[in-house]
């Protein structure tokens, strides 16, 4: 069953298309990573899914309903981001108690234990928290609500390395115990890729790729060696990234269409074949030029 169905979704902000004819489906009980560069439209997409803003054109359905002004969607979705508008009059403890009355599956014990574990003072107010502590509190809200669709927008921003690690583990443990659909947008793909089942890569408001993370790792390979030899081998291949090293060496990332024997022949010709990490590949795929930042400095 698809939890989210999106067809030709477009959102225009003052003449700029934040989302441009985006189409995809998210299936039930999967953890999907929403990956893209700054300004790719990740937050806009999550806002539309949560029903906070309306699309300009196209259609998006969550649980077969349009999310904007839908009680059904609000009750079954929680959206955590770094601009949460929580009541300033309530302290953390009261916020959790209030949240409990909104979500039928709310786990009060989990919320209290997490609050205690991360040493958040229950009497403090949300606005008085540091950036990392705000993110930590958002995570507690998101996990304890246990709603069918959880949306995390940059959940780890401001968190230190230890808290991030704890967060990933907590998310996975709760997901194993209570499977549900989760979307996480993050810039730390290398940190979250093991948690993910699928990845949705967006670039300039369009869907670039939607596939299992495991496939992404084998999707492309890096070739390194003599520039002339590499040029010969990559002639008819789909080149994703290229970089020259030293005088006559290059590193080129291509689609992985190599067979076992072809790979062996390339190695015999003196080419080093290496896998490309998912996080590097996403950087290459979402970059505007094939040479990356080096192109800016190459005037000649």
């Amino acid at each position, binding site marked *: 069953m698809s939890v989210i169905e999106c067809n030709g979704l477009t959102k225009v902000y003052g003449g700029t298309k934040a989302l441009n004819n985006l189409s995809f489906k998210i299936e039930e009980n999967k*953890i999907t990573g929403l990956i893209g560069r700054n300004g790719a439209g990740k937050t806009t997409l999550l806002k539309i899914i949560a029903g906070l803003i309306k699309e300009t054109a196209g259609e998006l359905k969550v649980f077969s309903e349009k999310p904007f002004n839908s009680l059904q969607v609000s009750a079954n979705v929680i959206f955590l981001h770094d601009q949460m508008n929580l009541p300033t009059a309530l302290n953390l403890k009261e916020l959790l108690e209030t949240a409990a009355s909104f979500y039928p599956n709310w786990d009060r014990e989990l919320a209290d234990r997490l609050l205690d574990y991360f040493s958040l003072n229950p009497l403090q107010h949300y606005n008085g928290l540091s950036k990392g502590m705000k993110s930590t509190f958002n995570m507690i809200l998101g996990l304890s609500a246990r709603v069918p669709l959880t949306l995390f927008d940059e959940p780890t921003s401001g968190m230190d390395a230890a808290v991030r690690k704890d967060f990933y583990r907590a998310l*996975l443990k709760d997901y194993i115990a209570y499977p549900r659909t989760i979307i996480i947008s993050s810039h730390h793909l290398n940190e979250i890729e*093991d948690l993910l*089942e699928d990845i949705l890569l967006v670039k300039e408001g369009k869907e670039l790729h939607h596939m299992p*993370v*495991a496939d992404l790792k084998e999707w492309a390979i890096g070739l390194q060696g003599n520039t002339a030899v590499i040029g010969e081998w990559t002639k008819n291949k789909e080149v994703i990234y290229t970089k020259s090293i030293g005088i006559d060496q290059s590193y080129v990332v291509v689609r992985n269409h190599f067979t076992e024997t072809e790979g*062996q022949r390339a190695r015999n010709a003196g080419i080093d074949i290496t896998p490309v*990490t998912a996080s*590097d590949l996403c950087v290459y795929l979402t970059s505007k030029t094939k040479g990356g930042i080096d192109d800016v400095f190459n005037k000649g």
Partner: protein
Amino acid sequence: MLFNLDGTKPIYIQLSEWLENEILNGNFESDQKIYSQYQLAEIFNINPATAAKGLNILADEQILYKKRGLGMFVVNSAKEMILAKRKNQTLKRLVQEIVLEAGRLQVSKEELIEMIKTADIGEAEK
């Protein structure tokens, strides 16, 4: 983290190799139930779908067999199958690499064979 996450090998392949080692080390006997995908997900902090993929590699190679609703179990000849597979695949690939590097370094065949003969096998030798 117990796995090498730098991307040199997909996690599910590392997982299937880890499970093979568990069987080789005798931690799992024939017809014994192996870890479930959820146990593996919890141990290694990975998505259960990834863990299932690792288990399925071994099921496809018939090193594990499925019992409906009960999980996956180790087949009788699992150890022999893993050893044969590693010899045919992993060892062959490593030898290929050694020969290639020897060629680059202009090491002769005889020299290379001598190096292999005198290599210290340590405790692995029986």
